[in-house]
């Protein structure tokens, strides 16, 4: 224990020193970060309050359904933390220089495992944690829950998070053991397929639509605020996300005995999973670390270098510099499994999303307000996709130049050209996806709205790409090779929060024209197109300013000393 405290002390010292170098730039950066974090926390707080109010008052879903929706969101959250922890743990437990260093010292692998477990748990979950805590605060305030109730919620929430993290590490240890027998690719592919099926299965068994319709059928013979557990599939009641949402429900209902039961199960599960993780870590960590080294080196030894169709040797019509940088980026991308896997997962999600929204037309017909809300929610989802893609693939672009950036910086390449070469491929892909998303979620709404939405989406996509590129420059970390870690770093979080501020600005400006269009369709009146222009002009001006500013920021950051 003494050794663990000793190591933690020095890790903390190095972290504090790294973060507290006092320069004007750092001061501005930290103040800006603090401000954005604060604004975002406040935003999430009010958003959750308004969302609850909307669901309970406007839509009148009732307390039971509200908590079942929360349970579904918590399930996704659990899976995200779990999967995130597997990915981050792999690099922190098996690829980290710190582990290599500690293994050469008289520190037992079990202690290293414990230290890195804590490390990556907080690293991979901090942003999600902040979002959820702010929303939790909104929930607490809306239902006027007292301090004790809030503490009880936290007592349920923290073990829930811990269970997700512990399960991630347990799965990782098992994966590495299996990878030795079946090969890394097969095991990771199996894992991806399993996660996909688990999510599909969850929503198949616990379909929100079936739940809502089965409850609505019995209305008004049931009180929608009472617990209607008989409508839930039995297996769902055994999941920790349901325990957590049930605990929240019981706090509101002041049903302490049932609440204690759920809290007890939540805590026992987290202790159990954490103990299993520690036990397996104690038994397997060093073995799996060695196995991973063997797997990696045998992969290297058996690798056959294949020449892709865009190999360097092949003649190209592009200019030499353009060709060099684009081909290098493509090769580095395709040879990094995490990049390829993440791209495929995101592509799959986009296809699913497009298929789900492409048939959408006048949902909520007869209520133009509800229709506007639904339309803008889908629009916001589109923007979230664009933002996620940009955060994942644009934000790390500058950092991924890595320590080998010296070659480019000392070569006769103009920074402006470099930015152009770096952005051209990935930005084009994101812009095409954005266009597709916008088209498929709009074409049934008619020509006018499709063109309007397409224009706004393209401006938004370009602005979001620029924000992420610029923020990636400000927070560039050439020492970090892992794109996933880069896109979940503090800088990436801030970039994401900046995206959200911009997206909210768009939604606010779009509300009036979209609602007026739906109203005019509903009452069959003439719609004045200039209403669209009133939104389009400020959106385009602000977007262009954002694009210019953030590209300038990226330019400046690339000019910095290396």
């Amino acid at each position, binding site marked *: 224990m003494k050794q663990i405290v000793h190591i933690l002390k020095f890790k903390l010292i190095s972290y504090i020193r790294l973060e507290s170098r006092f320069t004007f730039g750092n001061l501005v950066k930290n103040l800006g970060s603090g401000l954005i974090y604060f604004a975002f926390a406040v935003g999430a707080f009010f958003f959750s309050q308004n969302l609850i109010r909307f669901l309970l008052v406007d839509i009148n879903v009732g307390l039971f359904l509200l908590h079942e929706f929360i349970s579904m969101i918590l399930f996704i959250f659990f899976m995200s933390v779990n999967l995130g922890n597997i990915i981050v743990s792999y690099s922190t437990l098996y690829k980290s220089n710190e582990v290599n260093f500690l293994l050469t010292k008289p520190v037992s692998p079990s202690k290293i495992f414990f230290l890195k477990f804590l490390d990556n748990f907080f690293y991979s979950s901090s942003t999600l944690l902040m979002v959820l805590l702010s929303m939790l605060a909104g929930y607490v305030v809306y239902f006027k829950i007292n301090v004790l109730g809030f503490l009880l919620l936290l007592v349920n929430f923290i073990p829930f998070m811990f269970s997700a993290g512990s399960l991630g590490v347990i799965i990782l240890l098992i994966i590495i053991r299996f990878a030795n027998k079946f090969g890394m690719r097969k095991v990771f592919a199996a894992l991806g397929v399993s996660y996909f099926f688990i999510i599909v299965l969850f929503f198949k068994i616990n379909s929100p639509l079936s739940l809502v319709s089965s409850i609505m059928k019995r209305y008004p013979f049931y009180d929608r605020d009472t617990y209607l557990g008989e409508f839930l599939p039995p297996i769902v009641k055994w999941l920790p996300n349901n325990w957590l949402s049930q605990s929240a429900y019981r706090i509101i209902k002041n049903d302490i005995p049932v609440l204690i039961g759920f809290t007890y199960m939540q805590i026992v599960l987290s202790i159990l999973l954490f103990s299993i993780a520690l036990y397996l870590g104690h038994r397997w960590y060093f073995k799996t670390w060695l196995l991973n080294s063997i797997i990696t080196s045998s992969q*290297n030894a058996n*690798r056959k*270098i294949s020449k892709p169709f865009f*190999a*360097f*040797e092949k*003649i190209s019509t592009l*200019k*030499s*510099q353009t*060709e*060099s*940088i684009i*081909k*290098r980026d493509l*090769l*580095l991308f395709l*040879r*990094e499994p995490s990049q390829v896997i993440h791209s495929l997962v995101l592509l799959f999600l986009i296809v699913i999303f497009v298929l789900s929204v492409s048939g959408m037309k006048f949902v909520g017909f007869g209520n133009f307000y509800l229709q506007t809300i639904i339309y803008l929610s889908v629009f916001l989802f589109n923007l979230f996709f664009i933002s996620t893609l940009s955060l994942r693939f644009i934000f790390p672009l500058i950092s991924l130049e*890595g*320590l*080998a950036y*010296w*070659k*480019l*910086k*000392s*070569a*006769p*390449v*103009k920074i402006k050209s470099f930015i152009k070469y770096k952005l051209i491929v990935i930005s084009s892909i994101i812009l095409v996806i954005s266009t597709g998303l916008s088209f498929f979620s709009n074409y049934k709404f008619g020509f006018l709205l499709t063109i309007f939405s397409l224009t706004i989406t393209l401006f938004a996509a370009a602005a979001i790409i620029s924000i992420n590129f610029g923020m990636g420059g400000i927070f560039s970390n050439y020492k970090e*090779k892992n794109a996933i870690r880069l896109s979940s770093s503090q800088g990436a979080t801030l970039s994401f929060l900046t995206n959200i501020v911009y997206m909210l600005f768009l939604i606010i400006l779009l509300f009036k024209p979209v609602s007026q269009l739906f109203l005019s369709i509903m009452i069959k009146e003439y719609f004045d197109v200039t209403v669209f222009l009133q939104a389009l002009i400020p959106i385009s001006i602000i977007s262009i300013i954002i694009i210019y500013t953030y590209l300038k920021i990226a330019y400046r950051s690339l*000019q910095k*000393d*290396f």
Partner: protein
Amino acid sequence: MLELKNLEKKFGNFVAVNKINLKINKGELFGFLGPNGAGKTTTIKMIVGLLSPTSGNIFLDDTNVWLKPTETKMRIGYIPDQPFVYDKLTGREYLYFCGGLYNLTKDVLKTKINEQIELLKIGSWIDKRTEEYSQGMRQRIVIASAFLHNPDFIIVDEPMIGLDPQSAFLVKRLFEEKAKNGITIFMSTHSLNVVEEICTHVSIINKGNIIFSDTIDKLHNLKKEKNNNFEELFIQLTNEE
């Protein structure tokens, strides 16, 4: 000619390079000596465009390096002390990438790469990913990349780090040959033996200041005058500051 005029670099209050002046003529193999932290790498990084000078100028044949960076970088080949390359590229792909940055055509590149493989004895490693390379092999690839575009000036930072005796010998002969062909080589090192063996001119930097700058013969004379060996002379010079 490479000329540094009142070149200064400060990191906050710390003066890493203190208004130094140097002239390196065509065909010279110029040794830039100094103890650890003397300012050698900082000076080199300012020449190749990795660090911006706080004040002063760098001229390459009367062209200001920081005013016309693209033009001057075309003429420089840089070999850093740490040979960081892209792990997932093969040596050959890396060389094609580097050549492309200097607008070399495919045919020229192909010939040049094959020459470098032969010259630096890279062999079949050229088609392996650089993540499998030893430090020495990475260094060879980086050296090869610096010579691809036929630069007039080679700027080298600690070239012998990580090289085995065979590779070190190879690199020394390569530099001597290039200098004989009129290429200017500016080489920072703290290896006194390397300087004695191959350099024609020497500068010694200590705590950011140039404390000696002349031909290697003058340094030899100084050594004889003081009746010391080279190592003792260096320690004496750098301690006097």
